[in-house]
Structure formats: structure tokens, C-alpha cells
């Protein structure tokens, strides 16, 4: 095994060919559904259920999904759902950053009574079954008028975004040497200026990674918009599943096109922060 750990030593043996074959097998399994979705999204209405791989591709489905015609056909306002998703998730991430950065800094820089409790309370939100909170919120939102609003969604999405932001950024602030800020203080900076001018720029990659990852998870969330929105603030994930339901003719090609559009933003964002992904996904527990 030690020979295999060393990079740069390449030998073509039976074992290494076998290993590559196993990997190829996994990646066929892994990529086939995505490829199939792309194919389905390029099929016309008449071909959607009659052919598997041979067909004349068209890009019309993407336009149809986004347009009023698509809404008339499938009674799903997908363009509206896209806008709602951006507003809900963008707002939720912004609130989490504004509130989470100071808390993460405090928890990363100082040890004070209650800081660990605070952090673990945050973490427990990540692991708590969502419905425990959403069912009472469903009742509260219906009473207060927050049901099906962007504000309501921004509030409940804090359950998703806040633990991510606080835990990831705390691990970055912990890695930051306190001496840098001490130097700034000795130069006559105030605490606040030392934080803004020294600490904040140094953890900028962490902030970007935490923000984008929080956005991805908020975007991918399904339970909250399913229960707490109707048509006004509903999101892409709920809209995509609505293509499947509904009576009348099924538009599988439109479903696939919508699924593709809905999957694209998280995929693109994930590729930009791939270096920080492991650390982010493990809430800072694994520093890769």
C-alpha cells in the first residue's frame, strides 16, 4: 500500500487496472442518471416516452419551462419559483452571515462561559428532525401571516444556514493567529478596526465557502418550502416535484428540463468552492 500512497510512481499492473475498472464502474453508475436527465430534457413531447437514446434533440423544453406557456401546460410557475428561491436563499445567507460572523468570531477567539453550549445548540439544529420545528411554525405562520412569504422562509432557513456559517467560520477564526490582531491593537487600532482590517480579510475564503455552501443547502432544501409556502414564495425544489404530480398529460421532458435548471446553480457553486468542500460539509471537523 505504501507504494500506492506515493504519488508519481506509476506502474501498470493487474491490480491498478482492476482498480481503475472499479472506479469506472462507479462513475457510470454515478453519471448515468444525470446523463439520462439531460437526454430526456432534450426530447420532444412525442419522443419523451417512445425512445431511449435515438431521437432528434431540441432545446425548446428549457424555454417552455420558463415561459407562461409552460405554466399553462403544467400549472407550475417555474420562473417564479426560481426568483423565490434566489430571494429566500440569498436573504437567508445574508442574515446568517451578519449574525453568524460575530458569533463565530467570539467563539473562535475567546473561551468564555457558555460558548460551547451555544455552538452545540447550533449544531443540534443541523441534526434535529425538521418537522419538530416546522409543524408548530406551520400553525404560527398561518396565524401571523408569515405563511407563504419570503420573510417566513428566510426565518426558517436559518435552521439550515446558521449552523453551517457559524461552525465553518469558527474553525477558520480558530486557525487565525491572535498575534496578528494583537499587533494591530498595538499599532493603535481599535478592536473593531483590527477585526475588520486584519481578521476579516484573512478568513475571506472561509466566508465565501460558508456562504456558498449555505446557499446550496438552502437551495436544496425541500421540507420547509413544502410545508410553509404555497404559490407565492415556493421554491425550485417544490416546483420540480410538482411537474410529476397533477392530472392530465405528463410532461416528463419538461420535468427533466426543470430538474436540470434547478440542479445547475448548486453544481456551479460547488465547483467554485471544491477546495473548501470537505471542510464545509463536515462543519469544520475535517480540515482538508
Amino acid at each position, binding site marked *: 500500500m505504501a507504494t500506492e500512497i506515493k504519488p508519481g510512481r506509476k506502474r501498470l499492473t493487474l491490480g491498478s487496472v482492476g482498480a481503475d475498472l*472499479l472506479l469506472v464502474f462507479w*462513475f457510470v453508475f454515478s453519471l448515468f442518471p444525470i446523463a439520462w436527465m439531460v437526454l430526456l430534457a432534450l426530447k420532444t413531447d412525442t419522443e419523451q416516452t417512445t425512445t431511449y437514446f435515438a431521437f432528434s434533440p431540441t432545446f425548446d423544453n428549457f424555454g417552455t419551462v420558463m415561459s407562461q406557456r409552460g405554466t399553462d401546460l403544467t400549472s407550475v410557475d417555474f420562473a417564479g419559483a426560481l426568483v423565490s428561491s434566489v430571494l429566500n436563499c440569498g436573504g437567508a445567507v445574508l442574515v446568517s452571515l451578519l449574525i453568524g460572523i*460575530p458569533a463565530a468570531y467570539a467563539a473562535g477567539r475567546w473561551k468564555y462561559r457558555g460558548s460551547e453550549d451555544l455552538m452545540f445548540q447550533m449544531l443540534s439544529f443541523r441534526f434535529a*428532525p425538521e418537522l*419538530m420545528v416546522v409543524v408548530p411554525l406551520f400553525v404560527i405562520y398561518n396565524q401571523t401571516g408569515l405563511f407563504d412569504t419570503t420573510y417566513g422562509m428566510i426565518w426558517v432557513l436559518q435552521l439550515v444556514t446558521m449552523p453551517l456559517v457559524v461552525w465553518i467560520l469558527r474553525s477558520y477564526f480558530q486557525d487565525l493567529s491572535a498575534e496578528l490582531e494583537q499587533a494591530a491593537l498595538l499599532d493603535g487600532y481599535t478592536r473593531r478596526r483590527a477585526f475588520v482590517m486584519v481578521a476579516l480579510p484573512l478568513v475571506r475564503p472561509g466566508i465565501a465557502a460558508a456562504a456558498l455552501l449555505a446557499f446550496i443547502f438552502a437551495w436544496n432544501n425541500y421540507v420547509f418550502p413544502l410545508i410553509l409556502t404555497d404559490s407565492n414564495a415556493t421554491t425550485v425544489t417544490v416546483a420540480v416535484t410538482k411537474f410529476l404530480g397533477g392530472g392530465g398529460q405528463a410532461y416528463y421532458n419538461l420535468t427533466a428540463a426543470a430538474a436540470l435548471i434547478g*440542479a445547475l446553480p448548486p453544481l456551479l457553486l460547488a465547483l467554485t468552492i471544491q477546495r473548501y468542500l470537505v471542510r464545509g460539509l*463536515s462543519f469544520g471537523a475535517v480540515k482538508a
Partner: protein
Amino acid sequence: MTTTAPSRQAPPAGPAQHGTPPVVPRWRRRLRPYLLSVPAVAIIIGILYPFFLGVYYAFLNYSAVNPNPVLVGFDNFRSVLSDPEFWTSVRVTATYAFVATGLETVLGIGIALLLNRSSIVGRIFEKVLILPLMIAPVIAAVIWKLMFNPQFGVLNHVLGLGSTFDWLSRDRALWSTILVDLWIYTPFVAILVLAGLRSLPKEPFEASEVDGAGWFYMFRRLMLPMMWPYILVAVIFRLMDCLKIFDIVYVLTAGGPGDATRTLQVGAFEDSITNLNYSRGSTYMFLLWILVFAVARYLVSVLGKAQRRAAGAEG
């Protein structure tokens, strides 16, 4: 609250070299971390309020048809715990969680070991490994639901199963949903374990190779103990998420056919949102919450021990 001084790195008391640090009163310095955390605490309280309201619901007879509930003590718990449907949900949830987590862990470690050989194929595949993980689970479930379709779904066509093989039948639905879970989340275990493998020190492996140790011996005696904390982090995340699985199952089968895939959260959704019986749904969730909490506490303590042991082994 401020009885203990925050053990911050105090600025040196000696004369400053470049000007004087601003004089901040001691009480303000002590209070600072608390002040910074106040908004976050407000958010936590805002989330804990509905949580405790949910716990309270579990002791009421609250539903849409009974908007003026009264306390009924443990009636909901008695009724839920004596309901065979609840125990079916427990069994389905436990099967889902342990099978999915177990397979994902084994497959994820396998993929990470293969990728760590750093062949050219591996390096290309590492880039696309995470794609299923980043797609929304519901969207993944929608894709798979289309592929599972017996008539035009591509799976029966490619695998030559004909047009009558039903992936989401009563007997197969649970295994099919687990398959979708594997497709999405195996990369999660793989990238965490891969990060761990890359951080391993080389010396112990070279030393034991010189001593003539075989690959399997090194894997068992060296790699696995050192990797254990990474594997445990992955297992904790996967097990917790599987115990409260909702979205994949709801989209693929909505808990059916019958109650073949009715996991605890799907059951709670049926009770409280579909049937608008808030108290019964909350009782389900409270019981699930206790289960999740107990498992989390246990696993985190195991992780703590493993991390200390690995630190000792590496140190």
C-alpha cells in the same frame, strides 16, 4: 454571566512599542464575546420557541378539527406507542438508516482508497465524484423516479427487465429508496475519507513495508485506526440524516405502497400536515427526536475517544 474572565490573550502589560493600545474598560472586554453572540442567541431562542411549542403539542389533543385543545397528559404517547403503524415506521427507519449508512461507509472507503492511488483515471473522476451530492436530493429523487418508471423508464430497458418490473413495489420500494440514497451520499463519505487518507503520515507505512507487512495487515493495523475519526464523522452525519429521512422517500413513494417506506418523518408529515392532527404528528417527532438525540450523544462520545486515540497513535 460575567463571573469568569474570558481567557483571552491579554495584550502585553509592558510599554507598547508603536503607540498605546486603546484603553478598554475591563468589564467591556469581558462582556465583548457575549455582546457579539447576542444576535445568534436571539436566533436560537426564535428556533427553540417553536421546538418547545411542538413538545407542548405532544401533550395536547390539538388538530385542525379541534382548535381549542386541552392537555391530555401522555394519551398521545400511549396511543402512538400501541399503534402497530408506528412500530412499522420505527422498523422502516432503522432499516433505512443502518443499511444506507453501512453500505455508504463501506463503498465510500472503497472509492476513497481507489482514488488515493492517484491514477490518471482517479484524478479525472475526483472532479465529478461530488456531482450527485450537490444536486438537491428531491431533484435526484425526481430523476430516479423517472428512471424507475416500468413502462418508459430507462432502467428496465437498459437492464433488460421488461416493462412489468416495478422498482417501487411493496417488496422493493425500501431498497430502491436506499439505492437512491447511496447514489447521492456515497460521495460524501468518499471525499471525507479521501481527505483523511491524504493527511496520513507516510513514515509508519514505509516502516512497516520495510518490515514486510502485507497490504491488508497495514490497512487493518495502521490505516483503519488512524482513519477512524474521519470515518466516524462521516458515519455520524449519515446516520443522523438517515434517521430523519424525508425528502427522497416522500418524492419517490410518499411512504407507500401501503406503509412499506413510511419512515418516522414521513409518518409525522402524514399525521400533522396531511391529516392536520398536529398533536399526533408532534408526538411522532418528539419520539424521533429522543432517538436521534440518544444516538448522537453516543456517537459523539465514541468520536471523542477515537480522536484522542488517533492523536496518540499519530503523535
